[in-house]
């Protein structure tokens, strides 16, 4: 008996409970419970893997495991944070918020579990739908606008992804094997797939799921959505949703590589990756809004992921490791930014300064998160980014490696200017008066995430390494 249904059902049940609980005060506590339970389930699923049956729609292959791990860890920390956050926002009714968060959990798990591309598409679309109300939480004009853009651009992208999925199915059908969207079938018949359909399908999937990931130039919804959503939502979007979309892209990549199309695919991926990094760096320099800056940083890291994928074999390990690092570090950044935002009632560098004095813990964590995400040793992202760079040189792509470094530098400059403006200096009088103080609930989850990131950087835990190594081997088509 597969434990997949559990992953999907119990959050849904929790959601129903959340709908039933009348009290605005106690409802949020469902989130930590669900988060902890989910983490525990994930732990079980990872340590006691079930045999991967080719016919099962819901099964956990190595790639799915990595993503599931990221989502589960991130949600765990975010759920505790959210409990504290919602308590401080008691004036705002949070029923819909909690329900959507819980459905987010189940849909995200569905993405990780599904071995059927159609089902996966449904799940990703579902993810889009449940996150829309989350962005809308504050009910301000800006949040409406952000949600609108998120829905329109996101829906267009997801529609293209569906078309791409169909193309993929048709390429199998054209090859004479019945049109199937089971990953295992597609992998099995990969060499026979009709190339033109495969290429077209990959382009469509790249653009479609790329929109969800927020690759340039489909990233346009990102700064608005991240900027207006509550920070906990921003963390889940930039760490969870993007990872799920990336998993979808990984599947497409996997099939194309199995079909021997590695050259074509890598070209596109490299192009998109560099484009995204460049775009992010363009908009990050002189950015005044800290949340928008984080959004662009997310764009940049999606670019890094795609770039790493495009570098092929030598960089795969680094890339998959970077999925984990990026997810967790983004959590650190968004959650601490949220605390700073609450302390200053503003997210613009004109008002925010001296965070290290005003909210010492959050300010420090924010700065450390910045150092981590820009790849300073000994944090995790350093390892993964360095491995990707290594891959660039090992696959003989000097120019790509050089561009990678230059773009990293520009991003560092752009991001650093904003971050330092925020953490250094003296807080304004108005900022000193606000009620917010760092509490256990608002600080500990961030600290936990940072410790995880540091752990990956210092002692890349053997289980994680093994997990990712399995995933790499799986992508390489080796048993």
């Amino acid at each position, binding site marked *: 008996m597969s434990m997949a249904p559990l992953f999907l059902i119990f959050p849904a049940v929790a959601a129903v409970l959340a709908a039933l609980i009348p009290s605005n005060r106690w409802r949020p506590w469902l989130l930590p419970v669900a988060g902890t339970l989910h983490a525990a389930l994930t732990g079980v699923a990872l340590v006691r893997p079930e045999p991967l049956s080719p016919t099962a729609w819901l099964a956990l292959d190595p790639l799915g495991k990595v993503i599931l791990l990221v989502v589960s860890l991130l949600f765990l920390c975010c759920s505790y944070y959210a409990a504290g956050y919602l308590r401080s926002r008691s004036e705002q009714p949070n029923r819909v918020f909690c329900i959507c968060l819980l459905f987010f959990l189940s849909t995200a798990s569905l993405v990780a579990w599904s071995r059927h591309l159609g089902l996966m*598409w449904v799940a990703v679309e579902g993810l889009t*739908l449940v996150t829309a109300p989350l962005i809308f939480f504050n009910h301000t004009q800006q949040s409406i*606008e952000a949600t609108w853009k998120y829905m329109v651009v996101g829906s*267009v992208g997801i*529609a293209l992804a569906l078309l791409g999925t*169909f193309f993929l199915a048709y390429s199998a059908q054209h090859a004479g094997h019945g*049109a199937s*969207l089971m990953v295992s079938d597609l992998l099995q018949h990969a060499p026979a797939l009709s190339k033109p359909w495969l290429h077209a399908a990959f382009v469509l999937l790249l653009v479609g799921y790329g929109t969800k990931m927020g690759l340039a130039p489909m990233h346009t919804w990102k700064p608005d959505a991240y900027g207006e959503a509550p920070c906990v939502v921003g963390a889940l979007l930039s760490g969870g949703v993007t990872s799920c979309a990336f998993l979808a892209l990984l599947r497409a990549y996997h099939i194309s590589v199995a079909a021997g199309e590695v050259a074509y695919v890598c070209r596109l991926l490299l192009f998109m990756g560099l484009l995204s990094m460049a775009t992010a760096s363009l908009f990050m320099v002189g950015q005044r809004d800290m949340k928008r800056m984080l959004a662009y940083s997310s764009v940049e890291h999606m670019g890094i992921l795609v770039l790493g994928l495009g570098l092929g074999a030598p960089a795969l390990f680094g890339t998959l490791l970077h999925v984990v690092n990026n997810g967790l570090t983004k959590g650190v950044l968004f959650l601490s930014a949220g605390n700073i935002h609450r302390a200053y009632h503003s997210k613009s560098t004109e008002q925010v300064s001296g965070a290290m004095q005003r909210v010492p813990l959050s300010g420090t964590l924010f700065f450390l998160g910045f150092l981590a995400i820009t790849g300073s040793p000994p944090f995790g992202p350093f390892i993964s980014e360095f491995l990707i760079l290594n891959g660039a040189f090992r696959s003989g792509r000097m120019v790509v490696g050089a561009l990678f470094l230059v773009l990293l530098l520009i991003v560092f400059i752009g991001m650093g200017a904003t971050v330092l403006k925020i953490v250094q200096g003296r807080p304004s009088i108005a900022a000193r008066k606000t009620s917010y103080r760092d509490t256990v609930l608002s600080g500990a989850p961030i600290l936990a995430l940072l410790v995880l990131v540091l752990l990956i950087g210092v002692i890349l835990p053997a289980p994680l390494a093994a997990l990712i190594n399995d995933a790499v081997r799986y992508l390489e088509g080796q048993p």
Partner: protein
Amino acid sequence: MSNFFNPILVVVLLLNLFVLGTSRITSVIRGVAIQGALIGMLPLLLPGHVSRGAFLMAVLTIVLKGVVIPVMMNRALRDVEIKREVEPVIGFQASVILGALGAVWALLFAGRLPLTEAHADSLVVPASLATVLTGFILLITRFKALTQVMGYLVLENGVFIFGMLLVQAMPLVVEMGALLDLFVAVFVICIIVNHINRAFSTLDTRQLASLKE
């Protein structure tokens, strides 16, 4: 492929041009509704006996795309007493010409993609691509939020048309899921449209440009 297949697709193509050309939101809604209903019929016309699943799909599609969504749209339209003009970025003729060009490109492009014997000479691929492009054009060149929703629907229709090539491949659950997702998406968008109207007292998306660099 049945003989009714291609004619319907031709009608769908014509409807694209109509939707691009008309200046009244109501007629846009009507056009899209008809298009949706037509596309909903397609599974019934597929060769071989019609499975129960396919039948169910068809009915659901027709009901949703042909009836429910248009009604929702019209209600929204009524709630927000806006003037009925579509307010395009570019003129209607221009949009129509663009649409036509899109159709031509779709034909050429589809020509490059090899089809199985079964679908050798069907218009499915060009029709779906052309419809997708129409959706894009609507989304890009119209300012009213509602018309953009229409554009999204047209785009979805295009994707749906392509689905005809592999109904037997797509399991029912997935089809249903896709349809459900589409519906919920439109529903959510409608809610947002209402909120927009309440917050901004207009549906002109040009008002929704406060978030920018």
